């Protein structure tokens, strides 16, 4: 009898080990995805958890696909792609970055920003969140601004602009576009007006320009 119990115990251990570590199941996916898709998404979530990536955006993406009636393949592909973008954003921002920043960075990468742009953005805003800046970059591209131009604009404001300025900047560009300006023209115009305002306030804090220097017209 004891031998039987010992054998049964060893068999359980062997089966458990052979099955590998159990995959945690995200409860919100229950009933929203097919069993196959859910298993795959859970596996992606597990991997993301091990890598220290934020899980919420991945769950949200899967649920969005489910709500919109997308097929399993499409949902799984979208979640995997987002996981890759989150990884790239986390790597670009470096250590100590918040989940919201990683998510915003992933959107920016998907919009066309490069990893080094995100690195530079964080460097230019030490101690400040880059969530809004990265989100504005994504928004600008969505408004029709070429990614390179949008990235350059966001980076050029990075040192002086706070989040409110970024949002006002984006709102003004959107308004100008709605009124008929091309996205690039709107962005460029707003960049120079916002930039000028920021620069003026910065110069006001550090006066001392020489009187004989050439000036702007």
């Amino acid at each position, binding site marked *: 009898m004891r031998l039987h119990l010992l054998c049964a115990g060893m068999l359980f251990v062997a089966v458990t080990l052979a099955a590998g570590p159990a995959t945690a199941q995200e409860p*919100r996916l229950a009933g929203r995805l097919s069993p196959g898709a859910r298993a795959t998404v859970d596996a992606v979530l597990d991997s993301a958890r091990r890598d220290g990536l934020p899980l*919420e*955006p991945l*769950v*949200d*993406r899967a*649920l*969005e*696909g*489910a*709500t*919109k*009636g*997308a097929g399993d393949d*499409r*949902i799984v*592909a*979208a979640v995997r*792609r987002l996981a890759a973008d989150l990884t790239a954003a986390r790597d670009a921002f470096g250590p100590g970055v918040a989940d*919201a920043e990683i*998510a*915003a960075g992933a*959107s920016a990468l998907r*919009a066309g920003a490069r990893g080094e742009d995100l690195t530079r953005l964080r460097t230019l805003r030490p101690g400040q*969140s880059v*969530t*809004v800046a*990265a*989100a*504005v970059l*994504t*928004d600008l591209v*969505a*408004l*029709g601004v070429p990614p390179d131009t949008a990235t350059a604009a966001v980076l050029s404001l990075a040192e002086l602009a706070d*989040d*409110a300025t970024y*949002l006002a900047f*984006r709102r003004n560009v*959107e308004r100008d*576009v*709605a*009124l*008929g*300006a*091309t*996205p*690039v*023209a709107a962005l*460029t*115009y707003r960049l*120079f007006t916002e930039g*000028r305002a920021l620069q003026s306030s910065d110069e006001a804090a550090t006066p001392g320009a020489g009187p004989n220097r*050439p*000036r*702007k*017209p």
Partner: protein
Amino acid sequence: MSGGRRGFCTAAIGAALAGTTPISAQVTATTDLGFGAVRYQGFLGSAAVSVSPGIRFDSPTLSAAAQGSYLVYESGNTLIQGAGAAAWLTPSVRLVRGELSGFGGLSRYASEAVVGYGLARARLHAMTRTRGLWVGAGFGQAYTSAVTARSTELGLGAWATFPGMAVTLGATRSSAADSAYLDVAASFRWFRGPVEISALLGVRPHSSGNDEGGFGEILARLALTRSVAAQVAFGEFLADPLRGAVAGRYVSAGLRITLLDGGSSVRAADERLRSEVRLPFALPPDAPELLLGKAPIGARTLTIRRVSAERVEVAGDFTDWEPVALRRTGRASWELPVMLAPGVYRLNVRIDGGPWQVPRGATPQQDEFGGLVGLIVVR
């Protein structure tokens, strides 16, 4: 610096009097919207934006054009310009026609300088339908806030047109106040389909009291629709004492909007423009409007307006993409209190169980499921 901004507004008044003669009278009205960078001699470079409305009348014997421009520099200083030109061609005697023309303008830069000028000009043309020669002379007056000076101009030139192309070559000796200079310049205009390219290349080999050297400007224009064209231009120009312009260089890009074309009808430019804006994902005009307001205890109020419906739902990252019905608060207004931490959120709204759509106020972006999703940023 006063009045110095040639080429930045792309439709030069002088050009209004050149080119082919129309068979019947026609009126053209345009507005140029531009942005660019400019560097005037003695100044730092600056960005600038401009709005330049213009109108032009052409008939077989009479041409007239007027243009204004309003320019704002990076510093906040403004340049306001207005210019007009008119020309009358006499009936031809064999191949010879006379031309009487005049142009004048006024510009004001910031509160620092006002420049005005006017010139009357007579020319004699020997011309066929496709080519011609001319000689001419003009005199006028130029004044600034400080001085008034008589100006004169002597010139000769030649022009030719080919299918889709026009070329001119001319030499002009100008004098104003203590400056006198000779400009030799060639211009070129080329059209094919929606594309137009204009170029001006010249040299000032001799000048007293002014700069010498080369100058040139190039403009490329692409018609996007019948009434909207995109254009880019860049160039370098020398000082023009006759018009009170300092030397400089510029690069600009913008739109030309044709408001009135050939005297036919005024187009509903605003509506057309709005519909032709190259948004990657244009929202339908009747898309509902999203507002995100602050509510007590860190909550937000998500409001959907301009919706005539029985039921309005929202689904987004903050609802786990479960459709949540909004509460009606007015005839066309619906609300939902939500808790949103700072970040970026994706959402869609649905009206009466219809398709998921992006409300105005959210940035439309392609989702990965064959549709659009709206992005909002919460601070």
